């Protein structure tokens, strides 16, 4: 199942930019740890409200060194700033909000995504811990609660394994929740009929993307290069 890392695609920053262009104005969005956090750099000034699951709405950009306030961090433990109209609440209220359907979109990282939209993202069995132990964090609530789940990840693992798979072999975060997958190589929509390849990175073909994707992709008749 080892697939060669033969293609050069988008940087992490450009994956984030592609996702930023997917987000709609007037919405409330939660960004997970990792590449998702980078999305915030691309939406400054737009009419999008970021929620930080530790208990904040309308999170501002990262704090500069002299703006650092130890009581004001985002869910990745980074010092941030507040914007006009920011507000604070308990972590419990924050997850009430998440499960209650107030996140228009959640952008999450993933270890594996299946063709049915199953998401595995909280535990890598390679770490050797018991299978019910690991950093679940907010991922399961976000995956279940958000209206739209967008995955930001590299297309294959560092050691050349599929991450887009027929069935997840890693512990699940949630079943049938993923709507869109944005990787360094492609933009893929999860549909009832299967995975729809909508966009490919510059210089790649649908066949190239299929060669590093385990399940059979449906190629969109409107297939384009990834656009921002």
């Amino acid at each position: 199942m080892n697939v060669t890392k033969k293609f050069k695609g988008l940087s992490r920053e450009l994956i984030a930019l592609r996702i930023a262009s997917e987000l709609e104005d007037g919405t409330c969005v939660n960004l997970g740890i990792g590449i998702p956090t980078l999305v915030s750099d691309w939406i400054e000034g737009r009419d999008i409200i970021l929620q930080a699951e530790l208990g904040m709405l309308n999170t501002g950009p990262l704090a500069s060194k002299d703006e650092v306030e130890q009581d004001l961090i985002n869910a990745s433990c980074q010092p941030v700033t507040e914007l006009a109209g920011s507000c604070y609440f308990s972590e419990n209220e924050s997850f009430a909000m998440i499960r209650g359907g107030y996140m228009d979109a959640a952008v999450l990282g993933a270890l594996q995504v299946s063709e049915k939209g199953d998401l595995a993202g909280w535990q890598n069995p390679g770490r050797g811990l018991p299978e019910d132990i690991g950093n679940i964090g907010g991922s399961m609530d976000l995956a279940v609660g958000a209206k739209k789940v967008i995955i930001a990840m590299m297309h294959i693992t560092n050691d050349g394994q599929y991450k887009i798979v027929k069935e997840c072999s890693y512990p699940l975060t949630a079943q049938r929740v993923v709507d869109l997958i944005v990787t360094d190589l492609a933009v893929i929509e999860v549909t009832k009929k299967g995975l729809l390849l909508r966009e490919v990175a510059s210089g790649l073909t649908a066949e190239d993307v299929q060669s590093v994707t385990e399940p059979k992709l449906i190629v969109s008749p409107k297939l384009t290069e990834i656009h921002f």
Partner: protein
Amino acid sequence: MDKVFPSLDEAVADIPDGASIAISGFFTAGTPIPLINALAKQGAKDLTIICMQMGPGNEDINELVINKQVKKAICNYPFYRSASRGAESPTEQAVRAGELEMEVYPMGTFSEKLRAAGAGIAAFYTPTGVGTVVERGKEKKKFGEQEYLLELALKPDYAFVYAYKGDRMGNLQCHMTARNYSPEMSAAAQITIAAVENLAEPGEIDGDMVHIPGVYVQRVVKIDRPDYFPTID
């Protein structure tokens, strides 16, 4: 009803071996480190620690593990390092060695279990965790088209919480993202010990600005503003 204790040591003095203690804090924000240090000094053993994560980031909870004071940890994001990188914490080592029991819940379920305990709710049905290892051993029920898991209330003996300001009656005002778990842990615990940066007289906190009603808080201790800073992942 003056709830102020003169020192951290006195505030934690009666915690017995085997107690369960909820500790507030989301990574570095709102973690009552001085209370954790006082507990390490006090030495109670066989503790159950209920907190988001065991450190580093709030390194001093790891200290309790190094001291072998902790029998069990109930967390939602126990290890600071991500799934694939970073140093292995003393907590992770203890879990691997079978020296520390651990239960992990989704972040929303974790605080909802505490909230339920404080609110006299025995159990609740959440959609989170269905179809994952989290559902093991739990009752499932369908409401409408969706399946839900039955999760039980979680009632700690003690809570350690942090607040920007607290008055002698136990009313607490929190600051920004340092609020996180403090309100629900305060309500859930039998005895809540609040470490406050600013000690106020009753009436000095606007009643609409009280985030944690005094009735939930049994002990108040003044601490200096912690001088740790967020570490960046």
